[in-house]
């Protein structure tokens, strides 16, 4: 339960960033498809990655910037959780 709450708290800054930077202020759902929408082009994904690294104090290797990680805000959040666990 604590884990779920932590993920939910983690999702807020992710969806907020995406709403502001990639979706013109529209609400972004945790399961919203980020790829097919075309919102994350090569420059946007670089900016998004830089935001995630700064906000969550993690390093995202270039090899990890794939559709499996960036498909939805939820997959991004799960990835961050995994990276944070690996860092402990």
């Amino acid at each position, binding site marked *: 339960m604590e884990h779920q709450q932590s993920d939910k708290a983690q999702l807020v800054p992710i969806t907020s960033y995406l709403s502001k930077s990639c979706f013109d202020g529209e609400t972004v759902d945790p399961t919203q498809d980020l*790829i*097919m929408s*075309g919102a*994350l*082009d*090569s*420059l946007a*994904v*670089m*900016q998004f*990655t*830089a935001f995630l*690294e700064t906000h969550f104090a993690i390093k995202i290797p*270039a*090899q990890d*910037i*794939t*559709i*499996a990680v*960036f498909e939805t805000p939820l997959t991004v959040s799960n990835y961050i959780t995994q990276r944070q666990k690996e860092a402990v």
Partner: protein
Amino acid sequence: MDLFAPDDVQLALRQKIRDFAVETFVDDRGNVSEQDLRKLWKSCGDAGLLGLLAPKSLGGSARTIHTCIHALEALGEDCPENGLTLAVNGFLWAVCTPLLTFASEDQKTRYLPELISGEKIGCFALSEMDSGSDALALQATAQTTEAGYVLNGEKAWVGMAPLADMAIVLAKTDPSKGPWGLSAFIVERTDAGVTFGRPMEKTGLETSFFGEIHLKDCHISPDRRLGPEGAGQSLFSSTMEWERAFIFASHVGTMARQLTECTNHARSRETYGKPIIGYQSVSNRLADMRVRLETSRLLLHRAAILKDQGQTIPQESAMNKLHISEAFAASSLDALRIFGARGYLAGTNQDQDFRDSAGGVIYSGTSDIQRQIISRLL
């Protein structure tokens, strides 16, 4: 005060590279055969230029980015072959860095030592005839098979492709996913179904051969994929950041050489009884060249230090590409004007630099594209 002055190690390396350049590069413009270029390439490997970035375990010297930039800048000061210095920079930033970042340990061990020594040549095959500026709109495909992948497509404008033994090739593995469906592969010259084209004739940069790569039912094993499937866009972004930030490192050295040549000429050449440096129209050009050199160096060295700090620098990278390429083109035209008819003669440094610098505002993303990137990242 020079904020980016070399330390003792960097100074010694700069001198070593300058000595190498003076000894190695003779004035043989327009007559460089494939055999000659391969020989020059090997000499660059022997001098350690191709291994500046790679770890010592793979035959490199594991220099910092800033030290690497000092070495490349020094190369440009004394190597008049801008095509070759471009090729060396292209290898370091667009072949070596993606291999160091995305390759498996087995791939690194298999390819990097021979590339670093100069025994073999690598190239980065991204562009196609109809996808230059819109690079990720490429059409080459890599379909999954039971035994790996089968590649089809036509790559164009690939630096050093005519001599290359291997190429990093970007292709679509999932066309339905757009840029997220791109992957990178290593293709070897000896693979069935791949043809490396002949050198394309171009305006300048004769010592960097450009060419096409034709892929027709080229079957490769899964261990030739570079990075995860779908990581092609990331490899593109990462590689372009390195390339655009630093591919002009040697051309900044060339701009320093240009300024020295032009200043000396303007002091010794007399018209109407006095040296032409005494005319404001000439001295203004020299002043502009000095400012362009200084601003280019500042951007270049600052970016190197930021990369040594582990920072991501997409905007700085685009600013470097835009500013230094335009500065080199403008200063090359000024050098031509200062030398007058003498500089317009084929085979002079001024003629060569003028023709070579024109390409700089196009390759690695045009100046227009760099402006788009910079403004997007504001």
